[in-house]
């Protein structure tokens, strides 16, 4: 399996009035052809920043400080050099969280599809473009492509809109698709349909898929491998089954324990506390102050142990036994906030 | 099209005139006299005005006689026609007078109240009968314009304004609404034909802009320049004409209300104000100090007058007296400064002054409805050079201000009017003026305005003290 995407040592920093923040720190990621990699983590841990880095759409005050990104072997990003617009859309398709709002409300679906084709496949005739548009909608399981092509976004249901958004991302046959929380706003039934759609898409076309979500259960259903992010770092990665069944990072274990399930009948406890604000000067394990297993050693930076694709970033990794106890809260109250 | 703004020189020698405001109506029966700049080119007064501001026998009416105390006959110039072909005969003259007496909105109505009948005796003679003897009927007719009877009856004010017809040296050409009014030379004019092919009037309320138009050669004549602009025009090498006018600015000491119901207070105020100082400091020679109320002609002064004496004024006042000083803000040249100067002198003498600038409409309304008190500044713009104009305008009990009105004043004014001629009436007017201004201190005459206009390459414009302008003799170099 060749690697579609290779991210190495990616470090993304943001300049703010108060301090320089470290949004993504030393992220390594590999996505193969036809592989689905899930990225999970709490809100604000840097998932979207990672995605935006991959398509060169970082905000004005955010910049890549180190690391590189290769797409199909071509280096597309290095410090000081953005991913270009010709990569974006052509080789990498992106689906964002809010499908309802990721379609321009003023243009018909047909126009928006044609526009993408005109940009990346300038050779196509109008007839070919129309055919391709209808075909891609068909592939998305849309039964009346012609009606949808002639509709404005607001005339479609949420599920249809999400399919159209995916269609827009894949109409140019990209090598890689990035999906950033693209099912969060959907009803469970629709969500299940969209997930199935992704599964079929990857199986049929062999694209690589990065599926960003905060829903562990969803990731577990869809993904081949999972990377867990915390405080801008990937703290654990590995095959889905391994990560979910025998988590090694206390954070992963805590997340799993938080998932409501009829099998965890004890008192529901999450992970008390909140993630720290990571400045560029931050030292040590990001999770230390919420972790029951933390020790003095955690004050130093923690390296990655294990293989590239499978490993953990923790000094006190759990032994891999199923359902390890999460770090019990050190106190009954917490004092986080800003 | 743009007639008014082509670069240098005017197209075909048409005289381009810039006024300070747009004439509201071109119907002389209802229109304000200040608009006669424009209609005066088309329609003519029944009687012309000489250089001495007295009626002249060179106009439509060529002669007149007083048959008895109350009967006048006027000889009408034969063979004159309106530009629409109507005959400008005695009947037309009689009709014009009646229009002014009877028209509902006729602006001169109140002056013609004593006229009992007007008849055309024959084609060339008009007979006017008055109720009581009145010597100034010819003076009044200098301000009544000859209107085409049939045309006016058909068109009414609106139609006439849209297209006036008269016997004048110019005939109506066109108007561009809100922008300009044009007249062309009347080839069939009964008198000396004008050398100008026509006149185009435009207007601009801002003096600096009027001057700018003249300097940029977008105009040939601009009227109504305040001293600053007049001086500037002179400095720029333009011809500036200064015309002493009969328009007088008078302070009224409202005598039927406190504080000026007290003659002593009136006297103090009258003594406090030094009109010479005001004129000298504010006007750069564009006004003349004026000591009387009934002296109409520009250089006339009354036989008796009040001299400023601030010391005596101070001694007359016991205790603080507060007087409201009302004036029509921005209405006349430097009126705001004048008000301040008057106020300053009054304060010097021990008064406390409350300034009350209002707009002109409010001022007239307050005056007419007798709501006003204290001192107010008001302008009198005579249309005829007869003292009665101000006597009946301000003094008598049926006048608008009726300040200090008393039966004695009414009798004096009436008696003066019944005299045989102006000379015989003059002593009575002198007496009236002395009583009102010097003895009673009801009025505070201030100054007479001088008007300035500037021209570039134009000669022969005639501008008289009564605010009438004649363009007939104008020539462009």
């Amino acid at each position, binding site marked *: 399996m060749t690697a579609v995407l290779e991210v190495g040592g990616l470090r993304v920093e943001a300049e703010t009035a108060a301090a320089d923040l470290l949004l993504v720190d030393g992220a390594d990621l590999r996505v193969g052809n036809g592989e689905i990699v899930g990225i999970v983590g709490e809100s604000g841990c840097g998932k979207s920043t990672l995605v935006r880095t991959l398509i060169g759409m970082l905000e*004005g005050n955010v910049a890549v400080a180190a690391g590189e990104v290769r797409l199909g072997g071509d280096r597309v990003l290095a410090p000081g050099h953005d991913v270009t617009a010709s990569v974006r859309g052509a080789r990498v398709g992106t689906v964002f969280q809010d499908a309802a709002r990721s379609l321009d409300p003023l243009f018909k679906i047909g126009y928006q599809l044609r526009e993408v084709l005109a940009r990346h496949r300038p050779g196509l005739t109008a007839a070919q473009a129309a055919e391709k548009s209808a075909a891609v909608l068909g592939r998305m399981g849309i039964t009346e492509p012609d009606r949808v092509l002639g509709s404005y976004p607001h005339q479609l249901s949420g599920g249809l809109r999400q399919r159209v958004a995916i269609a827009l991302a894949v109409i140019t046959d990209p090598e890689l698709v990035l999906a950033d929380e693209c099912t969060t706003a959907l009803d469970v039934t629709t969500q299940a349909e969209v997930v199935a759609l992704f599964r079929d898409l990857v199986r049929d076309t062999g694209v690589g898929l990065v599926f960003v979500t905060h829903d562990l259960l969803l990731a577990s259903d869809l993904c081949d491998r999972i990377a867990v992010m915390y405080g801008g770092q990937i703290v654990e990665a590995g095959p889905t089954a391994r990560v979910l069944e025998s988590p090694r990072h206390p954070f992963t274990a805590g997340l799993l324990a938080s998932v409501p399930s009829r099998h965890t009948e004890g008192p529901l406890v999450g992970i008390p506390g909140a993630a720290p604000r990571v400045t560029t000067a931050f030292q040590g394990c990001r999770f230390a102050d919420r972790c029951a297993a933390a020790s003095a050693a955690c004050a130093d930076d923690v390296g990655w142990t294990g293989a590239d694709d499978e490993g953990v970033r923790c000094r006190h990794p759990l032994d891999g036994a199923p359902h390890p106890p999460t770090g019990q809260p050190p106190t009954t109250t917490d004092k986080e906030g800003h | 099209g743009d007639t008014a703004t082509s670069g240098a020189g005017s197209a075909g020698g048409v005289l381009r005139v810039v006024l300070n405001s747009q004439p509201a109506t071109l119907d002389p029966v209802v229109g304000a006299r200040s608009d006669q700049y424009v209609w005066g080119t088309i329609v003519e007064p029944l009687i012309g005005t000489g250089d001495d501001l007295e009626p002249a026998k060179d106009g439509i009416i060529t002669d007149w006689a007083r048959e008895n105390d109350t009967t006048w006959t006027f000889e009408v110039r034969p063979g004159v026609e309106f530009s629409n072909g109507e005959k400008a005969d005695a009947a037309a003259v009689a009709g014009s007078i009646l229009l002014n007496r009877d028209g509902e909105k006729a602006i001169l109505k109140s002056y013609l109240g004593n006229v009992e009948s007007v008849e055309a005796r024959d084609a060339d003679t008009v007979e006017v009968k008055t109720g009581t003897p009145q010597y100034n009927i010819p003076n009044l007719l200098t301000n009544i314009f000859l209107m085409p009877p049939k045309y006016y009856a058909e068109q009414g004010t609106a139609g006439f304004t849209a297209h006036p017809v008269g016997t004048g040296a110019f005939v109506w050409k066109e108007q561009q609404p809100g922008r300009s009014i044009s007249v062309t030379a009347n080839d069939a004019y009964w008198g000396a034909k004008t050398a100008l092919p026509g006149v185009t009037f435009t207007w601009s309320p801002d003096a600096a802009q009027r001057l700018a138009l003249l300097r940029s050669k977008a105009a040939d004549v601009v009227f109504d320049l305040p001293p600053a602009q007049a001086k500037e025009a002179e400095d720029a090498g333009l011809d500036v004409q200064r015309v002493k006018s009969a328009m007088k600015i008078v302070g009224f000491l409202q005598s039927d209300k406190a504080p000026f119901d007290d003659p002593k207070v009136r006297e103090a105020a009258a003594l406090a104000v030094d009109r010479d100082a005001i004129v000298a400091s504010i006007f750069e020679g564009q006004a003349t100090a004026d000591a009387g109320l009934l002296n109409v002609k520009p250089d006339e002064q009354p036989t008796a007058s009040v001299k400023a004496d601030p010391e005596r004024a101070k001694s007359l006042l016991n205790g603080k007296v507060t007087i409201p000083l009302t004036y029509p803000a*921005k209405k006349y040249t430097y009126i705001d400064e004048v008000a301040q100067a008057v106020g300053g002198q009054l304060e010097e003498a021990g008064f406390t002054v409350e300034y009350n600038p209002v707009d002109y*409409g409010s001022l007239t309304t307050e005056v007419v409805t007798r709501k006003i008190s204290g001192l107010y500044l008001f302008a009198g713009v005579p249309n005829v050079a007869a003292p009665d104009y101000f006597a009946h305008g301000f003094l008598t009990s049926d006048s608008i201000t009726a300040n200090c009105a008393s039966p004695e004043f009414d009798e004096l004014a009436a008696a003066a009017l019944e005299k045989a001629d102006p000379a015989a009436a003059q002593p009575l007017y002198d007496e009236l003026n002395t009583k009102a201004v010097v003895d009673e201190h009801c009025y505070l005459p201030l100054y007479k305005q001088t008007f300035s206009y500037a021209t570039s390459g134009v000669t022969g414009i005639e501008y008289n003290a009564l605010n009438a302008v004649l363009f007939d003799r104008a020539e462009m170099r």
Partner: protein
Amino acid sequence: MTLTTPTEQPVRKAKTAPIGTARRRPGVHGRRGVVLVAAPLLLIALAVLILPATGLLPDPDRQDLAAALRPPVFAGGAWDHPLGTDKLGHDLLARLVHGGRLTLMIGLLGAVVAIVPGTLVGLLAGYRRGLTDTVLSRLIDAQLALPFILIALSVISNRGSSLGVLLMVLALTGWAPCARVVRASAMVLRERQFVPALRAAGASETRIVLRHLLPNLAGTVVALATLQVGTAVLVESALSFLGLGVVAPSISWGAILASGQSLITQAWWVAALPGVAITVVVLLVNLLGDALLSHYDPRKGGHR
């Protein structure tokens, strides 16, 4: 997905700011921005209030006809009249300082009289909705449809020009735009869920409006009021210019400006300087208003 050359693809220099994604806002904003504009404004206000009392300036009403129309120092004048003199030889600096009092007072009062009714109407319309809203909104629209200047001119030409009438005009013409903005903000706020939460706790509608909505709108209202100060100053000067606002001998910037109008070709400074003063103050006031508005922007979750 051809693995041609594993070498460098042509890479493009990174743009520092891709289109419309930066988080910073331009201009003066935030607390620092507010201070930055408020400081010079305060300075002007203080100067205008205190300078006349110090006796450093000549009497603004003292005429000196011998020294009329002297240019300001920077245009060749002398230091005894740093900003020159007007037609009657008044010291222009003294008059500007003195006139500033009236101008700023009209600005402040003018804002208050417009903002108070505007806020109440807007609050009522935005909170009550339904028929109340429909009626009030129509009223606001109708008011906006009447050319403001004609309202001003009509009222003033009838009532004469006095401070009271001027304020009446400012109230009459200023409430509607304010009400519109407040209504919109109130409508956003009333959808916030603390409103039903308070209702559930037994709070009365009056309490919700006065104790919760109003304080939350305070920022917007203060900002609107600030902007209205600028408007009031401009209105005053425009009316004075047309001879219907503040007229001599009262001094305001608009009145000084008006008196300089006919002198513009002779003594430009008489009209130019008050114009500059007005522009500067209105500019500062507008900047302050903007800074306040952006600081209190409800979409940013209500900072203090």
